[in-house]
């Protein structure tokens, strides 16, 4: 007689064995993993979308971005918001201007914009200066702030960095090659000084312990001295940095009682503009800084009026005239190497300032409440 399998006679319970993992279970695990990854990716995408939306909303609300169009011979940059364009400078392939406190540079080859300043800690800037490689400008917490800082943007490295700290800003900066010049009072002293700064090293040198609004080109620094009621300087002080020589230049071929519009320097040539408010007669004069030889570049008469200070680069001098019928302006040019004055462009607006670098000419103009900058290339 066989023994009972269990003591109480109940049928035996087979041991529980886990079912082997089949293809369905494996697929379900992978599906779950994929769904988890997908959910995490969705969170990532929502975050990215929010960040991108914030960026584009902020960009849309910014007031510094102008409308840019390429023209047949250059660019047209028009004010797109209430803040007018100002303080235009041209150097190499960079066009720089101000828009409110913003300093903006445009690459003339690509039309690409770059907001150079002010930095996050500053709210005020002063007109920038540009050499072929660098843009130099001042920033401060406010226009009346006691302390300002000089900043530089290097177009070769695409970096912006602080160049110097100034106690008080007494002039706009000027830049040429690797040097910048300005007038300021330095910390601890309080007396004004005209200084040059090596942009690459930051090394500062005092050119003259006096007040002046310097313009720098090559190794030459100049500033007007003893200006009269019309603003016309009685003389220019000149310092050759390489030779360490200082001398004065008395302006020649001047108009009597005419208002001084401004001046520019290139190489060994100084150019300036004057306008007689009574007759409207204007004159652009070029003068060699070494021998003092002066030549009249342009006489603006017959109802037309010189409307901006001349600018010079190399042998090319440009200026702007308001037309007799007040219907617009014309930007004019003349090469000191020879030849008559020529029309660069007729502009249906008031030209506020002109600039030249190489064969590129730029002008800042205003029509109604809208300001714009245009550039063109002149043939050699």
């Amino acid at each position: 007689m066989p023994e009972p399998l269990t003591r109480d006679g109940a049928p035996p319970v087979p041991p529980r064995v886990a079912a082997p993992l089949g293809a369905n279970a494996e697929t379900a695990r992978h599906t779950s993993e994929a769904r988890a990854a997908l959910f995490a990716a969705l969170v990532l995408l929502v975050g990215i979308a929010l960040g991108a939306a914030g960026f584009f909303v902020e960009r849309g609300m910014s007031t510094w971005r102008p409308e840019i169009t390429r023209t047949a011979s250059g660019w047209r940059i028009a004010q797109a918001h209430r803040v007018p364009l100002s303080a235009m400078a041209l150097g190499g392939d960079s066009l720089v201007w101000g828009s409110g406190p913003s300093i903006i540079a445009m690459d003339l080859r690509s039309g690409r914009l770059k907001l150079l300043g002010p930095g996050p800690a500053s709210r005020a800037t002063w007109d920038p200066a540009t050499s072929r490689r660098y843009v130099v400008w001042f920033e401060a917490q406010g226009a009346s702030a006691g302390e300002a800082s000089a900043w530089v943007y290097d177009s070769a490295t695409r970096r912006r960095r602080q160049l110097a700290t100034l106690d008080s800003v007494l002039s706009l900066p000027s830049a040429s090659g690797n040097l910048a010049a300005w007038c300021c009072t330095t910390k601890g002293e309080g007396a004004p000084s005209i200084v040059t700064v090596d942009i690459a090293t930051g090394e500062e040198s005092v050119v003259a312990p006096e007040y002046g609004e310097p313009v720098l080109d090559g190794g030459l620094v100049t500033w007007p001295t003893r200006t009269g009621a019309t603003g016309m300087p009685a003389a220019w002080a000149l310092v050759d940095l390489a030779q360490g020589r200082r001398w004065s230049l008395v302006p020649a071929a001047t108009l009597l009682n005419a208002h001084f519009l401004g001046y520019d320097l290139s190489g060994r040539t100084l150019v300036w503009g004057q306008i007689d408010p009574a007759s409207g007669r204007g004159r652009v004069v070029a003068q060699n800084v070494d021998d003092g030889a002066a030549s009249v570049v342009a006489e603006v008469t017959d109802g037309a009026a010189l409307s901006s200070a001349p600018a010079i680069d190399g042998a090319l001098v440009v200026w702007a005239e308001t037309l007799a019928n007040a219907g617009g302006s014309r930007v004019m040019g003349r090469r000191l190497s020879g030849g008559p004055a020529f029309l660069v462009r007729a502009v249906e607006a008031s030209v506020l300032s002109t600039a030249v670098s190489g064969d590129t000419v730029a002008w800042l103009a205003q029509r109604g409440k809208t300001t714009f900058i245009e550039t063109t290339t002149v043939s050699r």
Partner: protein
Amino acid sequence: MTSWARRRTPLLGPFGVRVLLWLLVELWILNVADLLLTRYSLAQGFATESNGVMDYFFRSGTVPTVGFKIGMVTLGTLLLWRLRRYRTALFAGILLTGVFAAVVAYQALWVLSF
């Protein structure tokens, strides 16, 4: 855990734990991207660090900055992973990853626009 405690801190299922793992991996990578983009923007001179603590480390040098930023976020992600049983850890992971993704996207577009 008591049923009362369970009701107060709902637990996370296996799917939620997998999501949390992916989110923490993303968070760690986004943190590295944030560090690189911030470092680049500071080096270009176009930005300042508004976080006082990070500003201190950026001024101290690269090694302390990398050590602090990577270390803090690594500790945070490990803490969240340790608390993976709780649903709150998943919510924290979603929030942190979303915010970090938004910050990094904003920074990347800002850098690219210059």
